């Protein structure tokens, strides 16, 4: 199994390690998922997300290439800004969701899900032949940490030389933490203010220690999952996959009206099913794969679900047939053979 540069740090912190997409990753520390989750909502937490892949696209036609290969429009990005984006296939589905940062007029750094690094690289390389630019795998070049929570700007302000108050959401800046060069972006996937820190793998443990010594609580992938779910963000392999049309989700804003790869299969297609949020009315927890019923017929399936550590409500995403997807629709989730009442709601699942 692959190890991030912070593997020894996680072991020293007595993390529970699990296999995630071929990586040995912390699912939680002794503090537990709930405490880690609450720390990010109320103060500040630190995640190792070095397992994620980085891909650099570089060359005269990098902008034209990415405008064609992705659903959002990287051409609209100012320098040192990032955007949420997706990579379509030619069957109306998604190969991966990703973050694209503009690092120069003709240079972009893309952050992709760990499980999809190979498929993203293979796909981009198959399309890039027609463009004057290169696709470079930098996944081993970068350690990546996410400092997340309402206290993250204050904490980071104490440990970096630069003034971060002017750093806007989705903006990036080069700075230093304890002498280590860090590319800092005001991004994250928790629904809170926060930053992601790209650094050299050999510096990762130093940066981690500085941030945790300053008060950030180490948080694992378990809390990362409950936080993104509560915030109403999709996770590839659950809400999105190579069969899901993003135009049938709340993330249709990502898809810009321009020529893009696979457009014919995606654009203007009727949505037979839609991605919705659910709240259980009765007790229980909806899990991935549980069946969703409306008026005695199955209308869909849960894609992710948990008990919200913040609100204590049972929340989920589900793909359901369009006629049952209206907000407020009373539906049922089958939990171990029992139908449990639930309502279609519009994420996020907590007040922001």
């Amino acid at each position, binding site marked *: 199994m692959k190890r991030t540069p912070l593997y020894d740090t996680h072991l020293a912190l007595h993390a529970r390690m699990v296999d995630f997409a071929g990586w040995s990753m912390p699912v939680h520390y002794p503090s537990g*998922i709930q405490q880690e989750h609450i720390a990010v909502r109320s103060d500040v937490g630190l995640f190792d997300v070095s397992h994620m892949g980085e891909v650099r696209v570089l060359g005269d036609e990098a902008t034209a290439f990415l405008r064609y290969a992705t659903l959002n429009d990287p051409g609209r990005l100012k320098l040192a800004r990032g955007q949420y984006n997706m990579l379509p296939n030619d069957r109306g589905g998604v190969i991966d969701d990703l973050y694209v940062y503009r690092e120069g007029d003709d240079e972009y750094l893309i952050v992709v899900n760990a499980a999809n690094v190979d498929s993203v690289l293979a796909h981009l390389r198959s399309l890039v032949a027609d463009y004057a630019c290169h696709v470079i795998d930098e996944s081993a070049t970068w350690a990546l940490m996410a400092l997340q929570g309402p206290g993250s700007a204050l904490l980071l302000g104490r440990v970096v030389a630069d003034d971060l108050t002017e750093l806007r959401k989705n903006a990036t800046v080069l700075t230093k933490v304890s002498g280590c060069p860090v590319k800092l972006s005001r991004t994250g996937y928790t629904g809170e203010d926060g930053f992601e820190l790209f650094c050299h793998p050999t510096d990762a443990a130093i940066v981690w220690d500085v941030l945790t010594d300053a008060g950030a609580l180490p948080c694992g992938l378990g809390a990362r999952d409950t936080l993104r779910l509560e915030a109403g963000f999709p996770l590839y392999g659950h809400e999105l996959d190579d069969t899901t049309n993003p135009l049938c989700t709340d993330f249709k804003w990502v898809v810009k009206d321009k020529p893009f790869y696979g457009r014919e299969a995606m654009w203007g297609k009727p949505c037979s099913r839609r991605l919705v949020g659910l709240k259980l009315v009765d007790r229980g927890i909806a899990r991935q794969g549980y069946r969703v019923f409306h008026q005695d017929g199955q209308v869909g399936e849960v894609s992710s679900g*948990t008990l919200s550590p913040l609100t204590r409500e049972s929340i989920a995403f589900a793909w359901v047939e369009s006629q049952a997807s209206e907000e407020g629709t009373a539906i049922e989730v089958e939990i171990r053979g029992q139908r449990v009442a639930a309502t279609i709601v519009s994420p996020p699942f907590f007040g922001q």
Partner: protein
Amino acid sequence: MNIPDHLRYTASHEWVTEPADGVVTVGISDYAQDQLGDVVYVELPETGREIGAGDQVAVVESVKTASDIYAPVSGTVESVNDALDGAPEQINHSPYQDGWLFRVRLSDASELTQLLDATAYRQAASEEG
């Protein structure tokens, strides 16, 4: 890992007390609660239900996953730990005391001899983890 010597165990990580007036108390081991992580929801059997050894009779859910609980012995459910309803985290904090799950009136006390003693369970858990 705390595995008290005075209890008996199953390979599926339930513990069972010595019978008192024909009734045993059942819960999940410290090892099991540690593997699960934060417990947030518990489904317990109905009082009075007849259960057979090995039947799936309860569910303990952590943030991440739902875990089936099996009856270690056959008998009738005598009572359940209703306090877990409002405080499922007791299973994490006190797996052998406040975190107990249910009590069973034994129909066949000889089944207890089939269960693992603390030494055997310690061995089984260490091989798994």
